[in-house]
C-alpha cells in the first residue's frame, strides 16, 4: 500500500504541497484532482522520488518509497515524451528492459497490449507516423507493459476521444484486477467519476476533499433535483430552500439550499399522481470541483 503521511513540499517561500495524507491500497484506484498548480504533479514527483518531501513520509508497504524497486512502478507523465524517430517496438522494448523485463516477454506483451488498446499501427512503425491518440496509447503501454505494482497516470485521458478513453478505462480496470495500486489525475470529472474508488482534491497544495465518491457527495447533501412535473418554474422557485431553478429538457434542474426542501417539492409535484421524473442527488463531481475551486476565489 502507498501511504503519504503529512507530506509537505516547499520550494523556497512557496508551499507546493501542504500536509498531504492519503493511502492507495493494492487493487484500489485513487483520483487526484485539482486545478492547475494545485500540487498534483509535485505529489507524483515525490512519490516517484524525483523530489524529496520537505517534511512527512511516503511509504510503500511500510518502507520508504525509495526502497521500492523501480521495476514495480509504472508512470505516465503529463508531458508526453517518446523518441519520435524510433519504432514503436524499439522504444517500448527499451522501456520494458529498463523496468527489468526480458525482450521476448516484452515483445509478446507489446503485441497483446497493442491489440487490447486497438492501436492503429504496427510495432515496426516509427512513432512520429502515428496519430497523437495512438502515440498516447503507446506511451501508456510503455508505462504498464511490465505489470507494475504501483501505477501513476498524470492526465492519461488528454488527447483521447471517448472511445479510446473507454479502452483506457478497461485497461486500467484490468490492472486493478491484478492488484495494482493506481493513482491518476485528470481534469475530466466524468472519467474521474467512472474510474475512481476514492478521490483526493487539492487546492493550493492543501487537501480540500478526500474520500469515496459517496462520502464526498454526503458532505454536500442531496442538493441537486431534476424534475419533470406539472409544477412551473415559478412554483418551484417559490418553495423555501430552493436556490435556483433552471429549465432542463422537458423539466427543470433545481438547486436546493436545503435538501429537506425536496420532500415538500415531491409532495406538491405528485399530489395529482404520477410524474415521469424526480431525482434528488448530490452535486456532480464537476459541480463539487467548481464549488471547492471557487471557494478560494469567493
Amino acid at each position, binding site marked *: 500500500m502507498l501511504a503519504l503521511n503529512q507530506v509537505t513540499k516547499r520550494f523556497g517561500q512557496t508551499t507546493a504541497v501542504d500536509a498531504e495524507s492519503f493511502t492507495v491500497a493494492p487493487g484500489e484506484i485513487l483520483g487526484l484532482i485539482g486545478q492547475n498548480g494545485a500540487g498534483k504533479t509535485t505529489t507524483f*514527483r515525490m512519490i*516517484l522520488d*524525483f523530489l*524529496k518531501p*520537505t517534511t512527512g513520509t511516503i511509504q510503500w508497504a511500510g518502507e520508504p518509497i525509495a526502497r521500492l524497486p*523501480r*521495476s514495480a*512502478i*509504472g*508512470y505516465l*507523465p503529463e*508531458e*508526453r*515524451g*517518446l*523518441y*519520435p524517430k*524510433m519504432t514503436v517496438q524499439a522504444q517500448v522494448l*527499451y*522501456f520494458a*528492459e*529498463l*523496468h*527489468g523485463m526480458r525482450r521476448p516477454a516484452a515483445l509478446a506483451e507489446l503485441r497483446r497490449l497493442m491489440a487490447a488498446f486497438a492501436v492503429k499501427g504496427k510495432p515496426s512503425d516509427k512513432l512520429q507516423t502515428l496519430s497523437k491518440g495512438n502515440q498516447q496509447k503507446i*506511451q501508456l503501454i*510503455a*508505462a504498464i507493459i511490465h505489470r507494475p505494482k504501483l501505477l*501513476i497516470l498524470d492526465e492519461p485521458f488528454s488527447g483521447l476521444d471517448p472511445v479510446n478513453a473507454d479502452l483506457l478505462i478497461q485497461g486500467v480496470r484490468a490492472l486493478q484486477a491484478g492488484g495494482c495500486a493506481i493513482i491518476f489525475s485528470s481534469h475530466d470529472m466524468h472519467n474521474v467519476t467512472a474510474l475512481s474508488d476514492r478521490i483526493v482534491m487539492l487546492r493550493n497544495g492543501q487537501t480540500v476533499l478526500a474520500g469515496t465518491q459517496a462520502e464526498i457527495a454526503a458532505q454536500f447533501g442531496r442538493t441537486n433535483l431534476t424534475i419533470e412535473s406539472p409544477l412551473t418554474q415559478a412554483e418551484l422557485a417559490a418553495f423555501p430552500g430552493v436556490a435556483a431553478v433552471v429549465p432542463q429538457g422537458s423539466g427543470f434542474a433545481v438547486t436546493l439550499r436545503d435538501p429537506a426542501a425536496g420532500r415538500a417539492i415531491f409532495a406538491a409535484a405528485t399530489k395529482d399522481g404520477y410524474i415521469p421524473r424526480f431525482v434528488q442527488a448530490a452535486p456532480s463531481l464537476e459541480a463539487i470541483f467548481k464549488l471547492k475551486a471557487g471557494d478560494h476565489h469567493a
Partner: protein
Amino acid sequence: MRSAWVVLKQTYRKNVTSAGWLSLVLAPVICALAIAGFAYYLSGPSPTVQVAVVAPKAVAATLVQSQTKTQHYRRVASVAAADKATAAGRYDAVLVLQKGQAQLTQRKGGEQVATTLLETQLAALQTGLAAAKLGLSAEQVASLTAKPVLRVRTATAKAGRLEADAGDTAAGSTVVAVAVGFLLYLFLMTYGSIIAQEIATEKGSRIEESILAAITATAQFMGKILGVAALLLTQVAVYAAALAVAFALRPEWWQLVRPYLNGGQSGVTLGVLATAFVLGVLQYSLLAAGTGALVSSVEQAGMALMPVLMLAMIGYFASIMVPQGGGTVLNALSYIPFTAPLVMPVRVAAGQVGLGAAAVSGAINLVALIGLFGATLRLYRVSVLVYDDRGPGAALRQALGLMRSESRRQA
C-alpha cells in the same frame, strides 16, 4: 548496473547505426583511401626513357651498365644514325659524349629524360675516367669522394648545462604527441557534442521523466557516459584496423612511421599519451553531460557546450606551442585539469619534463576527475528534470540552489 547496461546498449546502438556517426567515422578513412588511390594512380608504372648514346665504346658501355628500370641507354654508332632513329621514335633523346662534353637532345613529344639522374651518372663516369687517367685505384677514388657524416642531436638546457635528449626520436615523439593531441581535441569536440545532445534531446522531448521513473539518474548518467565511450572506442578500433590493413598491404608505409616509435622516449611518451587520452576524454565527457542536463532543449545544447569547447581549444593551442619552448603559462596548463591531457604529453615528448612531472599531473587530474564525477552526478540528478527557458546559466543557479537545499534537508 543492469539498468546502466541497458542505457549503454541503447545509446551505443542508436548512434552506431546513425548516418551521422557512420559518416563521422568513415569520412577520414574514405579520404585516406581516395588520397592513396590518387597517389597510386599518379605513381603508376612510369614509361621507360630510351636514350641513344653516341660515345666511345668503353664510355657508352659504362653508361649502359648504370642504366635503371626507367632510363635505358643504347650505344649508336653516329650522331646522324642516332638523330634518324630518334626522329623515327625509337629513342626519346640523343646523348653525345665527346671530348669531355655532354650534349643531350630531347625529342619533343618523347618521354622526359631524368636529367638529375643522368648528371649523377655522368659525374660518376667522369670521376672514373679521371681516376683511370691518373692511375688511381678504386679505394683511392672512394676516399677522395667520401662525404663526411654529420650527426644531429638536441639538448635541453637544465641547471646551467646541456642535457642531451634521448635518442634521435625526440622530434618524432613530439610530432606523434601533437598529432594525437589533435585527435584528442577532435574526439573531445565530437563526443562532447554527442553526449550533450543525447541528454538534451531526452530532456527536451520530455522522455526523461519516463526514463527516470524506471531507473535512477545515476544509472542513466553512467549508461550515457559509457555508451558514448564505447562509441569512441569503436571509432578508434576502426582506425586501428584500417591502419593495420594499410600497413599489411604497404609495408613501406610502416617503415616510414616506425622510426617515430622507436626508443625509450617514445615508449614513455606513448604511455603518457594513452593515460592523458583516457583522462581527457572522461573529463570532457563528464563536463558535457553536466552541460546537457542544464539545458531545456536540444537547441540550447550547442550554446551551452561552447565554454567546454573553448576550454579544449585553449589546451589544444597550448599543446601546439610547446615545441617552441616552455614558459610559466604552458607549465601551469600542463597540470591544470582539462588542459593538462592536451599539453603534458607534448611536453614529455619534447623532453621539457620527465616522467615524474607527468605522474604528478596525472595524479592531479585523476583526483579532479573523481571530484568532477561526483559533482557532475549531483548536478545531473537535480537538474535533469528542471526546465528553465532563461538558459543554462539560470538553470545552473537553480540547480545549485536545489543542491544546497537538498544538502540542508539531509543535514
